[in-house]
């Protein structure tokens, strides 16, 4: 399509190109400004932060805030908790979702219709927050590491994405295998699953991002700061006029403030996402389409 009508571009079309280019570049810059400004603050000195003179470049460049963040603040243990819970969510969710989605994709399996309704109903009617909280408490998840894993392992939306993938799996292959005497377990684990890597990657990434960024459930369930996942820790650090940051800022020789430390924490916690993003970008695009074209 691009080749076919760029052969002869009129003057009007060239202006059009330029306007669009300028607009989009401006838009992208606006999107990037908050992150760049935050980066600048995190590398700026105490005086610059207190006088509020930091724009898009660091003023009085210093690594003091980053040094503090990387060394003292307990960020690492929170990262450990987030990494562990995310990894567990991905593994457990993929296992139980694939095993649930596959039978639901089979027309010959009579209960499938009803079970799909059971799944879809959780999308339509959401249990209120308080009974949800009380139920999780009842399972003994209060102040428990597993509170960040168990509630995250099943989502109707992702399940339906998987089901629609299994539905499009060529029936001939399965029929042929069945004639050769292949049982249902072997069919699923040795024939269907190995050729479902794309959907597994996509759905796994959705669960992974969800688990990594989860906030509300840990906020309700985790009071013990030693169990704080990264998101709660960041909230605590950014809003902290209390705790370790407040104590650290009182050290008068230190070259940081609440603001520079908070900025460093925010940028710091974005790093994992930015590092992984380029590798997984294509799967996310695939997943967004899988999900939206047919729910």
């Amino acid at each position: 399509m691009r080749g076919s009508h760029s052969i002869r571009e009129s003057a009007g079309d060239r202006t059009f190109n330029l306007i669009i280019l300028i607009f989009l570049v401006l838009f992208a810059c606006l999107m990037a400004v908050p992150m760049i400004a935050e980066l600048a603050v995190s590398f700026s000195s105490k005086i610059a932060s207190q006088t509020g003179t930091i724009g898009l470049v660091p003023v009085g460049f210093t690594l003091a805030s980053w040094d503090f963040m990387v060394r003292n603040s307990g960020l690492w243990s929170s990262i450990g908790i987030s990494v562990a819970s995310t990894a567990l969510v991905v593994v457990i969710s993929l296992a139980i979702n694939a095993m649930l989605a596959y039978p639901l994709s089979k027309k010959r399996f009579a209960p499938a219709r009803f079970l799909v309704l059971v799944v879809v109903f959780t999308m339509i009617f959401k249990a209120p927050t308080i009974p949800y909280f009380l139920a999780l408490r009842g399972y003994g998840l209060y102040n428990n590491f597993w509170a960040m894993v168990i509630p995250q392992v099943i989502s109707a939306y992702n399940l339906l994405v998987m089901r629609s993938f299994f539905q499009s799996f060529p029936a001939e292959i399965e029929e042929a295998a069945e004639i050769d005497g292949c049982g249902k377990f072997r069919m699923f684990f040795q024939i269907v699953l190995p050729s479902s890597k794309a959907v597994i990657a996509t759905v796994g990434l959705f669960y992974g991002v969800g688990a990594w960024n989860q906030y509300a459930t840990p906020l309700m369930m985790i009071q013990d700061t030693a169990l704080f996942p990264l998101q709660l820790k960041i909230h605590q650090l950014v809003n902290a006029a209390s705790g370790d940051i407040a104590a650290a800022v009182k050290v008068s020789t230190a070259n940081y403030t609440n603001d520079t430390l908070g900025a460093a924490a925010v940028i710091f916690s974005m790093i994992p996402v930015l590092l992984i993003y380029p590798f997984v970008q294509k799967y996310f695009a695939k997943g967004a389409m899988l999900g939206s074209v047919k729910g």
Partner: protein
Amino acid sequence: MTDVRRRRSRLARHFREFWPYYVMILPGLTFLILIRYVPMAGSIIAFQNFSLRKGIWQSPFVGLENFRKLLAYDDFYRVFRNTLILGGLKMLLVFPVPILLSLLLNELRYPRVKKGIQTVVTIPHFISWVIVGGLTFDVLGAGGILNQARALMGMEMILPMQKSAWFRPVYVFTSIWKESGWGTVVYLAAISGIDPGLYESASIDGASRFQKMTRITLPMILPTAVTLFLINMGSFLDLGFDQVFNLYTPMTYDVADIFDTYVYRSGIQQGKYSFSTAVGLFQSVIGLALVVLFNHLSKKVSEDGGLW
């Protein structure tokens, strides 16, 4: 007699053939029941005077008293109104942005620049609201970039995050910032499916690039937009606890408080379990009606529209 036997043998045959499926379903179904259905059943405490000590089996039933209390409570109407206004603003101002953005991205003739812009605008989708909230507070804070710019122009300092009048714009802009790039993925996919022949014949007829964009591309992605619009209308009340919770301050509660944040404060923090469940149940039931209604509409508009 033979009928019963036949039915029983059919059931036996069904289980002989499908028992592996039942085994596979079991873990997922168990989690679904534990995490989704048990809390649904627990909504019963909206009709009780629930206390943690007595538990769900011992707490006395009070009928509709919690709902009567809720309807007599000013806070409830404030929260309801805020939810409606923020939801409306979202549909009106945030929803169209990805459409516009994908139309423009599609017309961009420099593949490298296009890729770069797409990456920059999509990344925020993967950043949590805690971090977006932190960024917002810093950008709009006393020493933030907004006040830097204002100082340059000789304007006085403002603190938007502490002012009610600013909350709605902040809500809209952060929504756009975080999700508009991600939203383009669907539309760009729809655009890539348009028949190139349409553009070719338009070119022959002497259509300009702008005309092709507004007369071909836009109408062709409209069905996708309508479907998404209706699906979003169905989840109108789900404004996102994380976003509001990480953007509001006690100074902006009057316009920022939505059902989810209100329930969190009154229920989890103040322990008004039954009352907060009544509020939550009210939201869930209206939500249910909205989803069913708009799913029905979306199915009417397009064949494979709708969630189910």
